[in-house]
């Protein structure tokens, strides 16, 4: 267990030091984005990587988290943290709704259903203008903590906590259960595993964590429009999970960090740098399906 403690210590140090190593407001903003992406990638990995459910609609829960919390704060005057909690619960409930489809559908069909789910959510956010302001957007949203570095500490701290809790769950019999469902649903049932309940658990928890990321998003960007929560956002999340290493705990973290910072480092290429997501995803799927974690393990074996 001590190697885990060391790793946690290193992570805390890295988090503490980061805003000072990357001192400009711009880069601190990128750090906040990176922390949010870590949360999103962790949430998606729980559903896709560990439970084996092809969910392409995770952006919906990100959006619900953002909108529910913002509306509660701006329209009803709720406190940020209470609004955030409500938003997380709302996202989780929506995740349970998607789980209902996952119980009946497999593979391609579930992928498409989840996409449809995401599109419907997006359309609701876009068209229910009385509540969400739609395309006009909601303006003047304040972050819970005034400084960017402070916001980074909050989000990164939450990401670290979520990581540790998820890691615990995965090491526990719950992790065995989820992976059994991923590997073979029929024999999992023959071992007494209630697939419906556990899929609901994975989807609900994954959705709640994505919603949690969404809670911090509006304050970070200042304005809220539905466009940030479309299908391409789901695809970008998937790219982070897969490029990092699907089905491991550290993989999504690495993928999120790499795919947050790499496009920034490529700013010289203009808008073309966004193609890095698609390119990275394709290359990983073709040549290294286990992602960077697989590459790292292969390297270690090569050196020993």
């Amino acid at each position: 267990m001590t190697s885990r403690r060391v790793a946690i210590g290193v992570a805390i140090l890295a988090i503490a030091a980061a805003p000072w190593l990357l001192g400009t407001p711009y880069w601190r903003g990128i750090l906040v984005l990176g922390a949010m992406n870590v949360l999103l990638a962790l949430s998606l990995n729980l559903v896709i990587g560990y439970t084996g459910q092809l969910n392409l609609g995770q952006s919906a829960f990100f959006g619900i988290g953002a909108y529910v919390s913002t509306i509660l704060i701006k329209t009803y005057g709720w406190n940020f943290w209470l609004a955030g909690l409500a938003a997380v619960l709302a996202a989780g409930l929506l995740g349970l709704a998607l789980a209902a489809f996952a119980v009946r559908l497999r593979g391609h069909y579930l992928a498409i259903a989840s996409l449809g789910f995401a599109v419907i959510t997006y359309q609701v956010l876009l068209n229910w203008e009385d509540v969400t302001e739609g395309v006009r957007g909601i303006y003047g949203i304040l972050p819970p903590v005034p400084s960017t570095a402070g916001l980074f500490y909050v989000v990164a701290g939450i990401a670290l906590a979520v990581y540790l809790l998820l890691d615990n769950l995965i090491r526990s019999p719950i992790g065995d259960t989820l992976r059994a469902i991923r590997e073979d649903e029929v024999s999992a049932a023959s071992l007494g595993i209630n697939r419906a309940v556990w899929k609901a658990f994975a989807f609900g928890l994954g959705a709640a964590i994505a919603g949690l990321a969404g809670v911090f998003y509006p304050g970070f960007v200042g304005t809220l429009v539905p466009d940030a929560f479309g299908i391409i956002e789901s695809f970008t999340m998937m790219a982070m999970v897969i490029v990092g290493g699907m089905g491991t705990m550290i993989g999504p973290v690495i993928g999120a960090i790499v795919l947050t910072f790499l496009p920034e480092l490529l700013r010289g290429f203009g808008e073309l740098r966004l193609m890095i997501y698609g390119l990275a995803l394709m290359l990983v799927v073709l040549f290294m399906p286990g992602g960077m974690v697989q590459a790292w393990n292969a390297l270690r074996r090569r050196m020993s």
Partner: protein
Amino acid sequence: MTASLRAQGLNKSFGGVRAVQNVSIAVPDNSIFALIGPNGAGKSTLLNLLSGIYQPDSGSLEFAGRDLIGLPAHQRVRLGIARTFQKIRLFKQLTLLENVRAGFHIHQDAPFWEYLFRGSAGRFHDEAHELLEFVGLGARAAERAGALPYGRQRMLEIARALATRPRLFMLDEPAAGLNAAEVDFLLKRLEQIWQRGVTVVVVEHNMDLVMNVAQRVFVMDHGEPLFEGTPREVQANAGVVEAYLGGEFAA
């Protein structure tokens, strides 16, 4: 002799094909019960009906006094019913130990908070190792299940199913694809399982196994029950011999 597993008049059709017709069966407790018949006889379908993968079109089915009709497969496991599959269904990406550990699912009773905050691997670590030893795989606990040779995969599947601590253990053609030594090993394990008080139901083609280890044999043909009796009686029965076209039964 009591029979906890009882079925009356089971029927199952798939789009016009009558896979199981009017099958009534009573499996005596703590016996080794074989289900045999030529290909297409409906043996696997019957097993799937008993384990809950299919629901019968009509008929009654009960175990230990509990009505099984409508009860989904995963809930039957809690009643003590376990099974293995004709086509091996292992968790290929997981290690042997993780496969068996997954089998303890219904016995994991720690509160959720303990998993969330302590991340404990559950209480069955030692028992999982014991089961692996039982099937001769103790030394390979950390290997990936997908890397095992076929015969060993079969035994892993058995170890995993035993983790549920069944009272009734059903195996679908466990000897398929095994060589003579492996069949012998399997035979001895089944006997040991039986000695621990478990009722064992085996669907099999391999007559060595059936004749040597079964105490009662149920013969099916074309979805219908053909004959039931001891292995000797089955061997001697003309109808059974005919059903097999004199193949394995040449007296």
